[in-house]
């Protein structure tokens, strides 16, 4: 067995936990699974128990939304104990085949979707896209996200972004062929060493461009670069922040009307983890004719859609309603025409939920870039 049971106590500061239960109290998945993260923090103090704890299926229910970390009065990160337990299985090679395939794919092909690395820039075909070169300074270096690159449902977001950047005459360039997975999900799936390897390689790559800022489409890449890549030179932004700037500086204007009721779902990795609440709302507020409504559970209380934390590759055993379905129901109850989000994982899970609930005729799930891409003057 090539297992090395980490000293969890040290790594996750387990003795710092006062067992107050605010973590479990805020954990969104507790309504539908057995996951009790408070107990895991406590039980993991016993090194001999770690192997058994790692075998419990509920450790895979965690979405890494980080509500627990946000709420912890001692500044601990309970979710990382779960990630650490996942790491034990990773080191033994005993992860679910779907997880195995995603991790192997990140390692070999630089994306978790088993797509050939050589096809990374295929999405650019037919578009007028500026690609970065290390010799030329650029203000905004755009980092796409593997899911946006490869999944047709969300590929429209980057295509629209290109339209917008060209129209607003922004100084931008895309990373291009060498772009590789930010590996945020590799970290969340417990493959720490793969994550560290990707951090090293990606940092070198991104620093090789003379870029002032790195702009990401996915909040997961955004969060990873901002919080988990210590040596990046450039400032890290989410695209909603860039679009917000363009709108404020009047470099971009939405000229077409969209008289619809829009409710914005705060993605966990953008909102509660990084406090980016206002910019997406500002962008939506600039849409002529649109009425913005709010979920009761909005901003830092946003209900996780269960797209992150490796959940795109692991199913829960729970028979209870998915959180995304609850969210869709809530949007529907608000009378929303559009359930908007600014994250590819949110879009995919909410879209699935929309279909499962049968609301496709009454409501749409749309990425902000999907909505605004159609609102520009020709």
């Amino acid at each position, binding site marked *: 067995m*090539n297992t090395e049971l980490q000293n969890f106590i040290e790594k996750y500061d387990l003795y710092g936990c006062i067992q107050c239960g605010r973590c479990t109290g805020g954990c969104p998945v507790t309504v539908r699974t057995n996951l009790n993260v408070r107990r895991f923090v406590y039980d993991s103090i016993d090194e001999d128990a770690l192997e058994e704890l790692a075998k419990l299926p509920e450790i895979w229910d965690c979405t890494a939304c980080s509500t627990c970390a946000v709420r912890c009065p001692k500044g601990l990160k309970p979710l990382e104990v779960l990630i650490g337990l996942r790491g034990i299985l990773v080191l*033994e090679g005993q*992860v679910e085949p779907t997880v195995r395939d995603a991790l192997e794919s990140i390692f*070999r*092909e630089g994306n978790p979707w088993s797509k050939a690395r*050589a096809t990374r820039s295929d999405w650019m075909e037919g578009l007028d896209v500026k690609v970065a070169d290390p010799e030329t300074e650029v203000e905004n270096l755009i980092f796409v996200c593997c899911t946006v690159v490869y999944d047709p449902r969300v590929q429209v977001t980057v295509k629209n972004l290109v339209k917008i950047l060209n129209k607003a005459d922004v100084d931008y360039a895309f990373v291009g062929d060498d772009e590789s997975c930010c590996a945020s999900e590799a970290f969340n799936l417990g493959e720490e060493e*793969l994550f560290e390897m990707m951090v090293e390689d990606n940092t070198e790559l991104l620093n090789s461009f003379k870029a002032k800022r790195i702009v990401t489409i996915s909040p997961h890449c955004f969060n990873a670069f901002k919080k988990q890549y210590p040596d990046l030179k450039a400032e890290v932004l989410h695209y909603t922040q860039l679009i917000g700037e363009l709108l404020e500086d009047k470099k971009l204007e939405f000229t077409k009307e969209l008289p619809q009721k829009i409710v914005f779902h705060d993605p966990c990795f953008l909102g509660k983890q990084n406090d980016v609440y206002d910019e997406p709302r500002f962008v939506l507020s600039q849409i002529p004719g649109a009425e913005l409504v709010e979920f009761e559970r909005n901003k830092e209380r946003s209900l996780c859609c269960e797209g992150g934390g490796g959940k795109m590759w692991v199913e829960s055993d729970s028979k209870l309603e998915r959180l995304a379905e609850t969210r869709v129901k809530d949007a529907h109850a608000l009378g929303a025409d559009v359930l908007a989000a600014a994250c590819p994982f949110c879009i995919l899970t909410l879209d699935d939920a929309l279909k499962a609930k049968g609301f496709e005729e009454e409501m749409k799930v749309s990425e902000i870039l999907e909505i605004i891409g159609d609102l520009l003057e020709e």
Partner: protein
Amino acid sequence: MNTFVCVKRVPDTSEAEVKVDATEKDVDSSKFSFDINDADNYAVEEAVQIKEAQGGTVQVLCCGPQDADMMIRMALAKGGDSAMRIDDPRINFSDPLQVAKVLAAAIKEQEYDLVLTGCWADDDGFMAVGVALAEELGIPHAAMVKKVEVEDGKVKAHRELEGGISEVVEITLPAVLTIQTGINEPRYAPIRGIRQAQKKELKVLKLDDLGISEEEVSEDSSLIELKRFYIPEVESKAEIIEGEPEEKAEKLAEKMVKGGLI
């Protein structure tokens, strides 16, 4: 139980567009992603599971270029003990019988009980190397194995036949088994394991090291010859069936039955 497992590096062409190159005897692989042949991956897992249950060693064997080293390290990370890679441009990969000769030369002087190979390769689909290897080594074999039960000096192999039936055979060791996909669930090779596997032995050999002459395995001495590759004419991807709904259903049913789809 000392086991050899033969692995091959192949492209993943399930989604890629495949184009024949200018030589007409190969394809343009510039956009492919490469990895271990699927069936061989199952064979590696089976070999490691046998080692975990019975003790012994697993040696990984590969005919291929340096690019195959990462794949071999991943196999070592999963539980292989050492590896040999035979890297020689003179090996003729379009003749499975010659590839088998090369593998046999690498194995025959060694101590071993079992040789596992995948039952087919995702690229050429020959389904011949493993069984030919057994014949070269002069040992019994079983092909398309879905389950392996090791006993003293012999092995019970469940062969997968058409229609979901299994044929159980008992063969004496040493033997060759060609492994069918789905026999087990291959484990994940963690990055840490792959790093540690860098310390395991990976010998790179040429034909001369194996004591085979070029004549035995080169294109010239092969009894078959690949004349050319070409892309078969394919009708546009989806044949859209027309008519009223019930008509469409009937037409489809006929296609399914007459076209041998079911």
